[in-house]
């Protein structure tokens, strides 16, 4: 499977960090207290989070004490099963219902919202849909220009006002235009904002409200873009954005670095928001549907 190998390549760093390190730590060793502590450290370094790690470890301890896990392969089987159950079934982003299908992308500054949108547009157009991009990041200098370049590259339409104008008005215009022109997918780019800024979060709510005003079911997807290098703060981000605009899915970007992306385990566990997409490279094709099975497979092979 070509896709699987690409994912594996993208995740080699992740694999190295969790699985190989467990292997090196445990090879020819009894599973004793200090070995378990090492596993604990390894999980923590993967950004899985201290709490989730503690739970996995306390169960591991019990099973070791009960004599059910005795060696390295036992530990690997246990970790694989435990982490797979945390991630659940694949829940990709599927276009459904009446068009236009509206995707509202949100997230803190610098996570890769605009790039993700560009890649997403390329993919929908490749699948035969018409796509309209919406330049509702009217704050950051040259954000509109950046989205325009993506529109040119992918052949998507774009609705924009000038820099500094009301983002909600741009979103409303785009959705209205898409309705009239029979566009299939509208992707709304919003300004990056820290989840701690109440006023900016209010602005985001307003964007969502005006979209709802134009199409009652929309936005069908509210996509939180999360940078894989983010640590435990991603939980605070998920919480705040979820409270403001009800997140329906997550796109995890920059998984091609050395970041382990372990934060998705914690997010899934705490908020039950599925990871829809992962970014594993800079190329247009490097945005993939997230498949928990493949992800774990790539980790544990």
């Amino acid at each position: 499977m070509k896709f699987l190998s690409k994912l594996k390549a993208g995740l080699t760093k992740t694999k190295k960090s969790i699985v190989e390190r467990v292997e090196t730590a445990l090879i020819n060793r009894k599973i004793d207290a200090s070995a378990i502590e090492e596993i604990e450290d390894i999980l923590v370094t993967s950004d899985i989070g201290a709490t989730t790690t503690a739970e996995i470890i306390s169960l591991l301890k019990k099973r070791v004490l009960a004599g059910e896990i005795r060696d390295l392969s036992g530990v690997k089987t246990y970790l694989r099963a435990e982490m797979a159950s945390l991630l659940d079934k694949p829940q990709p982003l599927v276009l459904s219902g009446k068009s236009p299908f509206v995707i509202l992308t949100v997230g803190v500054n610098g996570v890769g919202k605009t790039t993700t949108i560009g890649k997403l547009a390329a993919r929908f157009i490749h699948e035969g849909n018409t796509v309209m991009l919406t330049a509702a990041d009217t704050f950051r200098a040259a954000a509109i220009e950046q989205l325009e370049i993506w529109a040119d590259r992918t052949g998507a339409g774009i609705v924009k006002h000038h820099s500094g104008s009301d983002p909600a008005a741009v979103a409303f215009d785009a959705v209205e235009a898409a309705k009239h022109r029979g566009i299939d997918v509208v992707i709304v780019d919003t300004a990056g904002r820290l989840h701690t800024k109440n006023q900016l979060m209010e602005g985001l709510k307003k964007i969502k409200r005006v979209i709802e005003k134009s199409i009652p079911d929309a936005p069908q997807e509210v996509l939180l873009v999360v940078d894989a290098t983010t640590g435990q703060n991603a939980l605070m981000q998920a919480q705040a954005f979820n409270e403001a605009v009800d997140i329906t899915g997550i796109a995890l970007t920059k998984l091609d670095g050395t970041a382990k992306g372990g934060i998705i385990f914690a997010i899934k566990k705490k908020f039950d928001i599925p990871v829809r997409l992962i970014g594993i490279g800079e190329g247009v094709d490097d945005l993939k549907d997230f498949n928990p099975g493949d992800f774990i497979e790539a980790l544990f092979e």
Partner: protein
Amino acid sequence: MFESLSNKLDSIFKKLKGKGLLKEEDIDVALKEIRLALLEADVNFKVVKDFVQHVKEKAIGKDVMDSISPGQQVIKIVHDELCEMLGSTNTKIQLAPNPPTIIMMVGLHGSGKTTTAAKLGRFFKKEGRKPMLVAADLQRPAAIDQLIALGKQIDIPVFYSKEAKDPKSLCEDALKRARLDGRNILILDTAGRLHIDEGLMNELSQIKAKVNPKEVLLVADAMTGQDAVNMAEGFNDQIGIDGIILTKVDSDARGGAALSIRKVTGRPIKFIGVGEKIEMLEPFHPGRIADRILGKGDVLTLIEQAQESFDQKEAEKLHKKIKADNFTFEDLRDQLKKIRGMGSLKNLLSMIPGMGAAIKDVNIDEKEFVKIESIINSMTHEEKRNRHIINGSRRRRIAMGSGTTVADVNRLIKQHLEMKKMMKMLKKGDSKKGFRLPKVM
């Protein structure tokens, strides 16, 4: 940043303080909790291990255990270790003996290099230097446009070429240009890249070799997790960095990245980015941050921010006005504007010792300021100077004009009156002390 870590440590310390005698177990329990707090704050696990080890070695020594307040002693040890981890003093950007001083910004995608380059430019301009920005990010769509737009905002020239393919030669050209134009600070905004991307890392080394920057600054996101260490080591080993600028510090990140990066690279954090606005870049003072983490507040930074916003002459003018009982609505508006220029009110309050925990969940409505400003703006010149003439119909007009209600206008007038009363009282006491800002350093 740091609030949550600070709250956790605070509660751990409370338990320690209450104990007259400390046993080794007490210290173990506290250290376990400190370890967890640091891990949850995204401090790298190796750094945490060292930290806990050091604190323990120092804390179980006889001097501490036998002292009158062992709890306090342990807290002091933690404080000292934190300071040690963060570095001891503020490290300024070094200037080249022969201008221009070249500063090269490097970092991952989305860490905030372009915005920070502009903020740094503004910082130097304010110091009276002549900076020039160089748009050497030829990768990200519209990165050049972004720097041009920011340059325009702060009135600093931007060197760019939309046809350029090679950032090396672009930077060389920029250097020639800076010499010709007499710009003494040259800030290179390079493209974001992964520390494991050999090709792009080589490109950075080549730029560095060609223009020989005085400072290579790693721009890092404060919200980075455990990977911060790999990233920082990657850039430091391959390019060699002289300092760090930590961005998005106004988030609720617990600051682990700051502690880890500094520790593994041994390079100082020189600045922190504390907001989207272009003036929101602060020199980094490790000792003060350690104090902030331990809940002691950061009054010095507050005073510096105040000094930047209020200049001494204006303060004296205001002082005279207050003496003459002549504090008008216009003065009130100007003062509010200046306070807002210092950053968000919550940010300011959190620097006051003991306020951090107290205002954690308080939402301060910054819109109130806008309301007050628009009410004052809707007054005529006369009204601004003489509140006595503001009768019922004037109040209605002002409310209409500012999009507020008569009740809002009434409240403002009352507040203004009360402020004047307070100022009168200050005047009776030592009036000079009241409104002069202390000089710092």
